[in-house]
C-alpha cells in the first residue's frame, strides 16, 4: 500500500510530462483498437470477393501501426523517465532497495496501463462508430457493420500489455544499471554528442535499396500484394536507421565546412540539430513514416474509389449487355421487354466471341489449356472469327491461314511475334489496341487475350484444344449491347424482368447495378483509407505536439543564454524557423521520395483490384500531397508560434 501511494505521488508530481504520455498512450490504444475492430467487423467480412484482401491489408496496417505505437510510446516515455529517475535517486538515498524501486515502477506501469487501456478503448470505439456514421453517408447509404468484438478487445489489450512490459523492463534496466548519485543527476545530464554510426548507415542504406528494389521490380499484381508488407517493413527499418545515422553524418560534415557553419543563421541550428538528433531522429523517422503511410493509403484507396468509374466505363461499352446463350432469349424478346417498361433502347449491336478459357502461357508464348497455372502464367483467352471482327469493327483486315490478330486486356501483353495455340502455330499480324464494341476491362484481374482467328477451321481447332468438354454450340456466345433511357423505376423493373429469364440459358449485366455494387466495395475501401489517414494525421499531430512541448522547455534555457550573449529576436526567430523547417520539411521530403518509389508497387496493387492505372491516380496523388502539405503548414505555423513564445519567455 505504501508503494502504491509513492507510485501515485510520483505520477502526480510529474504530471506535466506524464499527461502527454498518457495522451499518447490513449491515442495509440484507440488507433490499434480501431484497426482491430475493423479486422473483426462484419462490414469487412461482407465486402464480398474483396473481403480477404481488405483483411490482409488491414492486418498489414495493424502491424505497421503496432510498431509505430511501440516506438511512439518508448519515445514519449523517455522524456518522462528523466524526471522519474531523479525521484528514484532520492528514494534510493532515503534507503530504498533497487527491488523496491522496480516495484514502484511496476505499480506505475500498471496504473498507466489501466488508465490508457480504459480511455483508449472507449475513445477508440466511440471514434470508430462516429467515423462509420459519417462515412456511411458519404459512401452511399450502405451500412457497414462494426460491433464490439471480443477478439479485437483481447488482441488490443494483449498488445499493450506487451508494450507496457517493455517499458517496465526499460525502467528496471535503468534502475539496475545506475548508481544512486547518477539517478539523482539524470535529469541534468543532457544527451552527449552523437557519434558517427557507419554500421547503421550501411544497414539502413542496404535495407532502403532492397525495399525500393522490391517495389521497382515487382512482376505481378499478386506478387505485389505478397511482397508489399516486406517492402514496407524494409523501408520502415531503413528510415529509422538512416534518420539516426545519416542525419549525424550530414550535420557533422556541415560543421566541418567553416564557411557554412560559422554563419549566424546556421551555427546554432546545425549544432542544435546534431545534438538532439538521437531523440529527434526517431521522432522524425516516425513522422516521415506516418506521412508516407497517409499518402500511400489515401492514394491507393482514393484511386480505387475514383478509378472505379473508369473501370465501369471500360467494362460497359453500353448500359446493358445481354448474353444470348443458345437463343435462350432473342434480341426481339429483349427489345419487347424494353418497350414494355417504357424504356428506349439505342446504340444496339451484337458481338460473338468464345467463352473465356483458362490457359497457361509459357515464356515462348505457348498457350496450353489448364485448370491451374501459377499467377505469373495464367491468362484468360477468347477467340473470335475474322468475319465477326470485320462485321463488328468495319476494319477490312485480311489474314493468312497462319496469322492472327491479338488484343490484350488487363495487362495482357505479347512480346514475341509467334504464338502457339495448343499445337497450332500462328504469327501475330497485329497487336490490336482495342476491338470496337468490346469491353476493354473486366472485373476479374487476370490478364487476358482475344485472338481473331483467320478461318472457321482454325477456330474449330482452337476450341477443341481449349474447350474439350464443352458442348460445341455453347462455346461461341453472342452478346447484345444497348443503351437504355427512361426512369430509374422502370429500369429496375426491367432488370427484374430480365432476372426472371435468368437460369434459362441467358445472363445479363447492367451498368447501373454494377456501379452500385462497386460503390459498396470501393466505397468501403475508401472509407478505410480515410479512417487510416485521419488516424495517421492525428498520430502525427500528437508527435509534433509532444516534441514541441518537451523540447521547447529544454530549449528555453538555451535561448535565454543566446539572448543574453547578444542574439536578437529576429535572429532567434530565424533560427527557430530553420530548425522547425528541418523538422517538418525533412519528413515530408522523405515521404515524397518513399511514395515515388512505392508507386510501381502501388500500381500493381491497384491492378490486383482491377483498377487500371489512369491519370486519375496522379491527380488524386497530387491532391493528397497538397492537402498533407497544407495541413502540415498549418501545424508548422502553430508550432513555430507556440515554440517561439515558449522559448523566449525571459524570466
Amino acid at each position, binding site marked *: 500500500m505504501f508503494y502504491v501511494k509513492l507510485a501515485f505521488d510520483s505520477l502526480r508530481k510529474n504530471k506535466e510530462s506524464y499527461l502527454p504520455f498518457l495522451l499518447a498512450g490513449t491515442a495509440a490504444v484507440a488507433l490499434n483498437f480501431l484497426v482491430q475492430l475493423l479486422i473483426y467487423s462484419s462490414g469487412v467480412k461482407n465486402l464480398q470477393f474483396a473481403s480477404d484482401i481488405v483483411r490482409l491489408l488491414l492486418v498489414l496496417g495493424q502491424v505497421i501501426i503496432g510498431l509505430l505505437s511501440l516506438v511512439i510510446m518508448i519515445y514519449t516515455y523517455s522524456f518522462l523517465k528523466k524526471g522519474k529517475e531523479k525521484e528514484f535517486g532520492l528514494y534510493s538515498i532515503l534507503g530504498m532497495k533497487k527491488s523496491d524501486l522496480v516495484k514502484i515502477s511496476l505499480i506505475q506501469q500498471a496504473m498507466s496501463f489501466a488508465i490508457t487501456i480504459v480511455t483508449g478503448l472507449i475513445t477508440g470505439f466511440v471514434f470508430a462508430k462516429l467515423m462509420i456514421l459519417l462515412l456511411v453517408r458519404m459512401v452511399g447509404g450502405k451500412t457497414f457493420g462494426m460491433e464490439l468484438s471480443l477478439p479485437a478487445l483481447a488482441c488490443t489489450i494483449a498488445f499493450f500489455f506487451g508494450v507496457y512490459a517493455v517499458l517496465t523492463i526499460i525502467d528496471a534496466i535503468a534502475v539496475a544499471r545506475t548508481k544512486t548519485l547518477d539517478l539523482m543527476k539524470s535529469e541534468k545530464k543532457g544527451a552527449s554528442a552523437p557519434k558517427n554510426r557507419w554500421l547503421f548507415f550501411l544497414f539502413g542504406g542496404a535495407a532502403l535499396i532492397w525495399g525500393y528494389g522490391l517495389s521497382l521490380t515487382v512482376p505481378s499484381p499478386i506478387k505485389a500484394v505478397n511482397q508489399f508488407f516486406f517492402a514496407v517493413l524494409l523501408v520502415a527499418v531503413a528510415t529509422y536507421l538512416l534518420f539516426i545515422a545519416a542525419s549525424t553524418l550530414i550535420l557533422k560534415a556541415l560543421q566541418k565546412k567553416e564557411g557554412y557553419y560559422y554563419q549566424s543563421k546556421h551555427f546554432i541550428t546545425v549544432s542544435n540539430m546534431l545534438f538532439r538528433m538521437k531523440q529527434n531522429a526517431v521522432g522524425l523517422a516516425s513522422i516521415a513514416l506516418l506521412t508516407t503511410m497517409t499518402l500511400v493509403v489515401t492514394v491507393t484507396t482514393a484511386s480505387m474509389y475514383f478509378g472505379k468509374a473508369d473501370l465501369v466505363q471500360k467494362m460497359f461499352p453500353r448500359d446493358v449487355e445481354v448474353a444470348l446463350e443458345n437463343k435462350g432469349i432473342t434480341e426481339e424478346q429483349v427489345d419487347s421487354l424494353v418497350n414494355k417498361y417504357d424504356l428506349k433502347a439505342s446504340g444496339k449491336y451484337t458481338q460473338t466471341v468464345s467463352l473465356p478459357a483458362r490457359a497457361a502461357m509459357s515464356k515462348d508464348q505457348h498457350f496450353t489449356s489448364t485448370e491451374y497455372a501459377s499467377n505469373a502464367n495464367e491468362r484468360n483467352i477468347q477467340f473470335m472469327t475474322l468475319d465477326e471482327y470485320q462485321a463488328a469493327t468495319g476494319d477490312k483486315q485480311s489474314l493468312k491461314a497462319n496469322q492472327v490478330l491479338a488484343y490484350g486486356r488487363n495487362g495482357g501483353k505479347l512480346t514475341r511475334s509467334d504464338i502457339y495455340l495448343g499445337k497450332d502455330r500462328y504469327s501475330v499480324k497485329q497487336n490490336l489496341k482495342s476491338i470496337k464494341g468490346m469491353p476493354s476491362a473486366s472485373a476479374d484481374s487476370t490478364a487476358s487475350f482475344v485472338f481473331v482467328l483467320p478461318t472457321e477451321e482454325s477456330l474449330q481447332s482452337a476450341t477443341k484444344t481449349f474447350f474439350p468438354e464443352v458442348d460445341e454450340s455453347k462455346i461461341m456466345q453472342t452478346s447484345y449491347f444497348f443503351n437504355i433511357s427512361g426512369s430509374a423505376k422502370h429500369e429496375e423493373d426491367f432488370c427484374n424482368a430480365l432476372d426472371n429469364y435468368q437460369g434459362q440459358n441467358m445472363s445479363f449485366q447492367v451498368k447501373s447495378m454494377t456501379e452500385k455494387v462497386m460503390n459498396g466495395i470501393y466505397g468501403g475501401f475508401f472509407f478505410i483509407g480515410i479512417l487510416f489517414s485521419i488516424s495517421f494525421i492525428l498520430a502525427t499531430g500528437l508527435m509534433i505536439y509532444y516534441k514541441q512541448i518537451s523540447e521547447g522547455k529544454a530549449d528555453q534555457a538555451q535561448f535565454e543564454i543566446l539572448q543574453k550573449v547578444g542574439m536578437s*529576436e529576429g535572429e532567434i526567430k530565424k533560427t527557430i524557423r530553420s530548425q522547425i523547417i528541418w523538422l517538418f520539411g525533412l519528413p515530408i521530403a522523405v515521404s515524397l521520395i518513399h511514395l515515388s518509389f512505392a508507386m510501381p508497387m502501388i500500381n500493381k496493387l491497384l491492378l490486383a483490384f482491377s483498377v487500371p492505372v489512369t491519370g486519375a491516380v496522379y491527380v488524386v496523388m497530387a491532391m493528397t500531397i497538397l492537402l498533407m502539405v497544407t495541413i502540415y503548414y498549418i501545424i508548422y505555423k502553430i508550432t513555430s508560434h507556440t515554440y517561439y513564445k515558449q522559448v523566449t519567455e525571459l524570466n
Partner: protein
Amino acid sequence: MTLLAVNHLKKEYKSKRSTQKVLALKDVDFQVNEGEFIAIMGESGSGKSTLLNCIATLDKPTAGHILLKNDDLANLKDKDLAAFRRDHLGFVFQDFNLLDTLSVKDNIYLPLVLAKNTKGKEEKLAHLAKQLGIEDLLNKYPYELSGGQQQRVAIGRALITKPELLLCDEPTGALDSKNAADILNLFDECHENGQTILMVTHSSLSASHAGRVLFIKDGTVFHQLYRGDKSEQEMLVAINEAMTNLLGGQS
C-alpha cells in the same frame, strides 16, 4: 574618463497578482571610469541583480539614465539591443551559461558568429586560450569540463569581442575556493590589461580583488570603499568590517 554613468536609477516591479509595486532600486547613482574594476556588494534582494540587468539592457529602468560612453541606453531601440550587448558588453554568469550543444571552441566563437565578424577568429581564440589556460580543452564539450574550466571558457566567450565593459554576476558562486581564486586572479590579469570590469557579488573575498566596492542596500548605494594602496588581505578586512558595521548595524 567615465565609461559608465548610472544616474538616479529607479526600478519598480509590478507583481502579476497584486497591484502593489515592489521597489527594487530606489535611487542608484555612480560612475565607472575606464579601466576600473568595480565590485557591487549586497545581500540577496538588495537589488544588485536588478542593477546589473538594467546595465546589461536586459531590463528597462523605471526612471533615471544609464550612459555608456555618454550614450543613453534608453535611446536604443528594442531591435538594436541584442547587437548592442554583443558589441559593447561581455557577460560572465554564476552558472557559466555555456551552450552544451557547442564545443568549447564554438562557444567562444559564438559572439563573433552572431556579430558576423568571424575574420581572424583563430588568432583571437589562440591568444585568449593561452591566457585562460584552456588550450587543451578547445575541442571538448562543456559537459566534459569541471566548473572552473567552464567558467574560463565563459570568460573567453565574454572577452573575445574585446568588450568595453565586462559584467560579472557572482562569477565564483558555483566554484570551490581553489577554482574561485584562479578565476579572480584571471580577472586581475584582465584588469591589468586595461579591461573595465563590473562585478556583482556577495562574497567579500571576490570583492577584495576590486579597486572599488559599492555596497547596495534597499535599492540605494549605501557606502563605497576604495582600495587605494591596501593589499588584498587588508581590503578583505575592510570589506568585512564595512559589511558588519554598515549593513548589519542598520537592521
